């Protein structure tokens, strides 16, 4: 676990460093009277980032110095697989909305989970693939009047969603 703790803290320190560099122009109190109250736009983000940077350095140092049992962040291969099986399709599904739209993505995503993870019979896979987008359409598009993203085929006039 120790390398992961150190890496996480270092990553936060880097984010803080980038923010500090970006807002460095307003880091100091303005004595010329140009900034209202002597504080410019960069003052607050700079010192928030500085606080974050110092603490991240402390956390990284402590994690480095403190021995912790075990080196892996995960409890075995099954845990890694369980997380990967969830994250990878989720990221792909979110990205595919730009092409497939929300409803096509929903059908494919539900069907994939039902077949791949649930190992359901095809009839149930088909029911979920069609039923879930239909239920969401009825609830959000018709009920709450929330318009969800449509596919490129919709833009081309080939599909109603």
């Amino acid at each position, binding site marked *: 676990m120790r390398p*992961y*703790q150190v890496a*996480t*803290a270092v990553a*936060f320190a880097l*984010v*803080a460093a980038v*923010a500090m560099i*970006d*807002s460095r122009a307003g880091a100091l*109190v303005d004595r010329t009277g140009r*900034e*209202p*109250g*002597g*504080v*410019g*736009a*960069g003052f*607050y*983000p700079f010192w*928030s*980032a500085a*606080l*974050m940077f110092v*603490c*991240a350095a402390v*956390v990284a140092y*402590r994690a480095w110095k403190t021995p912790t049992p075990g080196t892996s*962040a*995960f*409890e*075995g291969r099954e*845990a890694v697989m*369980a*997380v990967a099986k*969830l*994250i990878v399709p*989720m*990221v792909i*599904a*979110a990205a595919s*909305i*730009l092409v497939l739209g*929300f409803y096509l993505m929903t059908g494919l*995503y*539900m069907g994939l*989970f*039902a077949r791949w*993870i*649930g190992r359901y019979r095809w009839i149930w896979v088909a029911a*979920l693939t069609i039923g*879930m987008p239909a239920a*969401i359409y009825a609830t*959000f598009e018709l009920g*709450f009047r*929330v*318009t*969800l*993203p449509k596919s490129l085929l919709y833009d081309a006039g080939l599909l109603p969603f």
Partner: protein
Amino acid sequence: MEFLNVFGDLAGGFATALQPFNILMLFVGVMLGLVVGVLPGLGGTSAVAILLPVTVIIARTSPTSAVILLAGVYWGALFGGVVTSILFNIPGEPWSVVLLFDGFPLAKRKGKPGVALASSFFASFVGAFFATVLFTFLSKALADFALSFGPPELFAVFVMSFATLIGLGAESPAKAVMMIGFGLLLAALGFDTITGQPRLTFGQVGLLAGIGFVPVTIGLFGIGEIIASAEESGIGFMERLSARVGFKDILETLGELRKRLGLVISTGIIGFFFGVLPGHGATAGSFLGYGLARSYSKNKEDFGKGEISGIMAPQAAADAAAVGSLVPMISLGVPGSPTSAVIMAGLFIWGLTPGPLLFVEHHDFVWGLIASIYVGHLMTFLICLAAVPLLASIMRIPYAILTPFIILISIIGSYSLNNSMLDVFITIVFGLIGYWLRKMKYPLAPLVVAIVLGDSTERTFRQSLIASGGSPAIFVGTPIAAILLTLAVALLLVPLIRSLRSRGRRAEPDFDVSTAID
């Protein structure tokens, strides 16, 4: 005379809360809360965050109905988590973890699942009732007091709320400060509201408006929790009992409650005041209640073996703390827990400004909410007594359906607020960040509170300096600001003192209240 005014206001609140549409919203909220409370993969905070975009539509006609819906989710989740802890030995919510110690043993070893469930429901109801009475009488007084606050006093209140998160109970104060810094940075992103200059946008036009609170919260809580749950359920072990709460169980529980009424009321009252402290909601309250019950019990050896006090005290304190966490949100504009932080974000989205002016400008809204807490707890209590088998059956919804469904709802929630795909990607990214932060034991409560309070903290800081012509002496220029900032400094010294005291003796593991997510 002031008391009579409160009764009059409360009566008006009941007239609002008992309107058919508000009753319906409360019922929907409570049922949703019970469902997410039962499901280990989804928490009350996540459900409230996911529902925020839907409440925008409701708030167009009535913000009171919208807040009643969200509060109902909170109350439902408080009760729902109990069922899985007692029957399945799996905490549905972080605040139900403590029920594993005595709830499951009473249900399994002593064969009294009905009594275990009824004990927690009755204690929740009693604790919440007393907390709501305190809420009714104290929140207005606190708000009246806060009306005299100017920017320096408000800035001191915000600093103190951050100091509370760091000082009281954070296992790693450095990690808590880091999360606060990160939250403040995220809040600062986009246009500076005073000078109009872009900050931390790196030339990206999409970031000029800043990062929305809702997509970040849905990611951190909704997606982050579901990923963490996926990992744990692959490893976990589930033991199931079945139960219903019968009339005999209720009679037996009432007898036990009578013996422990003093304990339940006192832990409820202590839990309420603990909940009022920013950042400490139901989870921390539940552990506090358990600790108090055990410390003052004559039968310490019975704890962990199915002792009813070990169920009633934490439940009363947890519910009372949850009620208490809404007090600073309403009166001061400071969230008392992550869930109230999300509800507070809802208020901003609906065009309301949380804080003392709410009592003046949105009188019906505030008193409608307060009255709905009474009604909501009674409703949840009755539903729970009647519907335990139904709630337990929710646990049987297959993972392969539930998990993608929650992810889809999270995506809809983040997209629908601004019709923005950027918000969807922000949700996914923060879902991954939230999962990893949980894994690395970073507290999420300071992060969420900092994102919500970031803008207000900066605004009051700069307004104070503008008013004083740049002199920092303004921050200690009034007695209230000076006292609050001194308290904040004292709270920040707590971890240092604790660390010095623990040197030379074996460190005992503490419960980290700031990692509590409620």
